[in-house]
């Protein structure tokens, strides 16, 4: 297949950057999207040009490293699919494809299509610890977890932290990501003891990173390669508002009553 790619090229964080067009005359429908970019890059290297920088690691949809906004949709047109799992058969011969990095103030562009997502790491670490003992595996029935709770927690834990929710949101909000991280611990009994503090700290870190605010457009849900739903956002809103009303600071000497 013959393709015309329009790719965002930016030398570094302080470069203005611009869209540059490239012909790819020999893509095959069996190639993955990233393999197609590998082919383009090899040709660029042969010509002595700078290859297009893009993030990737596992290339099997589980690590969360890859992520390109393809024709205005994070991870491209296939639902529940990471960029690395997208194949060229999704496109047609002669297509023009626009490739852009995640756009958010909290995700500064490092180079070309690579952005710095360490804001996500800071949101996670702001959540603090979970009361789970290390060492040998605990006896399986010592803390019973209802099947439906385990399922819901696993749905939230599917999040691979790719950032497509932020990229898709008209406001560059990180609510879907943060709500998934708040929920996958908060739904389980092991995560309950710190739940109220966790949600408040994670939300305030999310706000401090400069992400936008949720307007409930549900674009994040549509873009999420793991199909995480906005139900988790409502869950986090609930937990946050309840925590504000019920959480009490640690008092010195006594329960603070």
């Amino acid at each position: 297949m013959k393709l015309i790619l329009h790719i965002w090229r930016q030398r570094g964080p302080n470069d203005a950057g611009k869209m540059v067009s490239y012909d790819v005359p020999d893509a095959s429908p069996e190639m993955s999207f990233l393999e197609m970019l590998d082919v383009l890059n090899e040709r660029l290297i042969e010509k002595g040009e700078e290859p297009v920088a893009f993030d990737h690691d596992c290339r099997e949809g589980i690590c969360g490293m890859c992520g390109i906004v393809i024709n205005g949709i994070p991870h491209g047109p296939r639902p529940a699919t990471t960029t690395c799992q997208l194949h060229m058969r999704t496109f047609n011969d002669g297509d023009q494809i626009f490739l852009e990095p995640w756009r958010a103030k909290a995700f500064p562009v490092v180079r070309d299509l690579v952005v710095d997502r360490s804001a996500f790491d800071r949101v996670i670490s702001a959540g603090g610890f979970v009361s789970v003992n290390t060492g040998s595996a605990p006896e399986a029935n010592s803390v019973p977890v209802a099947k439906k709770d385990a399922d819901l927690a696993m749905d939230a834990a599917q999040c691979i932290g790719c950032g497509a929710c932020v990229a898709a949101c008209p406001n560059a909000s990180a609510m879907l990501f943060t709500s998934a991280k708040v929920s996958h611990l908060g739904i389980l009994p092991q995560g309950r003891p710190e739940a109220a503090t966790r949600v408040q700290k994670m939300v305030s870190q999310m706000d401090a990173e400069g992400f936008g605010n949720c307007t409930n457009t549900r674009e994040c849900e549509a873009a999420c390669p793991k199909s995480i739903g906005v139900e988790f956002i409502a869950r986090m809103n609930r937990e946050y508002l309840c925590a504000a009303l019920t959480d009490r600071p640690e008092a010195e000497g006594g329960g603070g009553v």
Partner: protein
Amino acid sequence: MGGSTGCWVSETLRSSIGKKGLMAVTGLMLFGFVVIHLLGNLQVYLPDKQALTQYGHLIKSKPAVLWGARLSLLAIVLVHAAAAILLAMENSAARPVKYHVRQWREAGYAARTMIISGPLILAYVVYHLLHFTTGHAHPDFNPDDVYRNVIVGFQNKAVALTYIVAMVMLATHLSHGLWSLCQTLGFNHPKYTPALRFASIAVATAIGAGYISIPVSVMLGILK
């Protein structure tokens, strides 16, 4: 928040979720007002042409209640609008570089234009008050004959059209706003969310249609 300094109320309300919560609660109150106001207005259809005027007199007969309600509504609108503006400013700052190509999959027209429909509704409300409450924008205002003010007001086609457009805007705003406020306040469950999303659009449409019916009836000569 655990261990931090500062007042928990202001900390909560200044957070992203807190500001959204303020929007949702004030939005719900404004929705309540819009419903009650519509029920009041629909008295224009009662066979007794004095009904609407008498209702107007009833409201005005208790100045303390009237002014209490007016000032509360003003405060509610101010909080709603202030939170909207703060949130919108943060949102545009959160994406300094825009996309060249953008495709929407879920975000509907109403959801993407809340920050446009909102201020337009506010502008309409100002005009509406000058038109039917103070009479400054009315060609032949009589504070003691509410019914006639409505009929005369809507006999001007441009005025009637302005009202119709404004009410389409209100319905659009509410069609997203009603389900959005439930989501913001934490109500989302597979049991009822699909129904809620449908009801949001249905209720908003019914409200819009109810208001719009009045200028349309005047223009068609059904009300005279």
